[in-house]
């Protein structure tokens, strides 16, 4: 008789009531993102606090959505932002254009720009969607100095810093 099947169906749904809900209560608890998750960009620093970005604008060239704008200026030993010859005086990413492809990360010669874990991007205004350097730069690490730094002459002589092979 079909009554048995009906009872089985009812039992299945009743049993599922006793299971633990799979819901994540989002604003209070967040699920960790995957290791290669591509979220909001971060501009990284060296351990001494200098910015990794040397203002080469390769990221802007690589960007398929034309979301990145870079304007670079010369470093001097009195006003030094990055170890290289130049630094990004303006670095803007328009998150209304960005498609989070990560090509900028691939193009960057100094591993300065990295797509981070932050996926909570909200704006109430189109102007707010353009993130400047002050929002993208990570905080100064422990033991480092904030930029601009004043360094003794002759310490940073290379026009571009030493590029290491990627470690990960």
């Amino acid at each position, binding site marked *: 008789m079909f009554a048995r099947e*009906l009872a089985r*169906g*009812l039992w*299945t*749904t*009743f049993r*599922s*009531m006793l*299971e*633990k*809900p*799979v*819901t994540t*209560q989002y604003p209070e608890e967040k699920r960790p993102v995957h290791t290669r998750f591509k979220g909001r960009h971060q501009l990284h620093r060296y351990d001494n606090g200098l910015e990794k970005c040397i203002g080469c604008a390769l990221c802007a060239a690589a960007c398929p959505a034309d979301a990145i704008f870079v304007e670079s200026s010369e470093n001097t030993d009195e006003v030094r932002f990055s170890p290289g010859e130049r630094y990004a005086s303006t670095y803007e990413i328009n998150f209304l254009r960005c498609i989070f492809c990560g090509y900028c990360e691939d193009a960057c010669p100094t591993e300065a720009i990295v797509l981070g874990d932050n996926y909570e991007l909200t704006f109430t205004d189109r102007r707010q969607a353009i993130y400047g350097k002050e929002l993208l730069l990570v905080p100064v690490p422990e033991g480092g100095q904030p930029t601009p730094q004043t360094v003794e002459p002759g310490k940073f002589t290379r026009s571009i810093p030493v590029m290491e092979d990627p470690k990960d």
Partner: protein
Amino acid sequence: MEAALIWEYVIKSVVIMLGLTLGFAYVTLFERRVLARIQVRIGPNRAGPQGILQPIADAVKLIFKEELTPVKADKLLFILAPVITVFPALVITAVVPWGRQVTMFGREINLYLADVNIGVLYIAAISSIAVYGIVLAGWSSNNKYALMGGMRSSAQMISYELTMGLSFVGPILLAGSMSLVDIVEKQGTLGFLRWNLMQPLGFILYLIASIAEINRSPFDMPEAEQELTAGYHVEYSGMKFALFFMAEYIKMIAVSMIGSTLFLGGYMAPNLSWIPGFGPQLYASLNTAWAGPIWLFLKTVLMLFILVWVRATFPRFRYDRLMAFGWKVLLPLALLNAFIVAVARVLVGG
């Protein structure tokens, strides 16, 4: 009629109306939470602690929504149809008793609005009126889907009304009365747990027929989303839509109350006096006049849970199978049930 009596009736009516409207709001929340748990989710829990303000938020949203009326709609009927749908749902529980006599403010007050000697017939009559609202809504919308939904619902409700009416026959025969108060009181002398458990077939038939009668899943044919885009209320929006919604949920409460009154012993506590030792005292303390509404409430919640549970489990019937099931399976079974109860009543005596 003295003034105090009139006031008593007015106050009792207001309590029923407010109880049902408030109950409607919280049945929606109850349904959403239970459905969510069955689907291994949590459900609405943001508005207020455990989501208890969610119905209010929904109501505010619906009140402020734009009310659209189709250009070619029949304006009068279009506005009247939701009212006609809600009205029977609100008045149907007038004959359902929620308790015995209590003394309040120096008056003996019966905890029911009306003890009509044709209470069951009243329920059957009012539940038939409900179909008018749905058919008129479908007709006045001037929309083919709405019309189809309305026509389907009228056919469905007329078919399942027979089964529902015949499932009422069992309790009526056992009690020898059509008054719901008599039926509940008589159940105290019948049955193991004071419930009409002697006719499980009648209860199941009532359950199926009442789900069909209030157009709920798996018999939600009039509002089949996939085929009819929403059925009879496809053109309704805002508060008028809310009224249809309200009618559906109040009808849920009504059939749960009627079902628990006819088959589950209404306001009476389950008979526990068979427990040796403390049984009789326990039963006497559970079965006081003030406990009546609480027992009825618990039984109604149980019935509502069954309605939600069934909705969460079964897919919708196909329309022709719905009709075949109603006429070829349920109706003969209901007749058989009435026959068995009648024969048993004659043989055993009552």
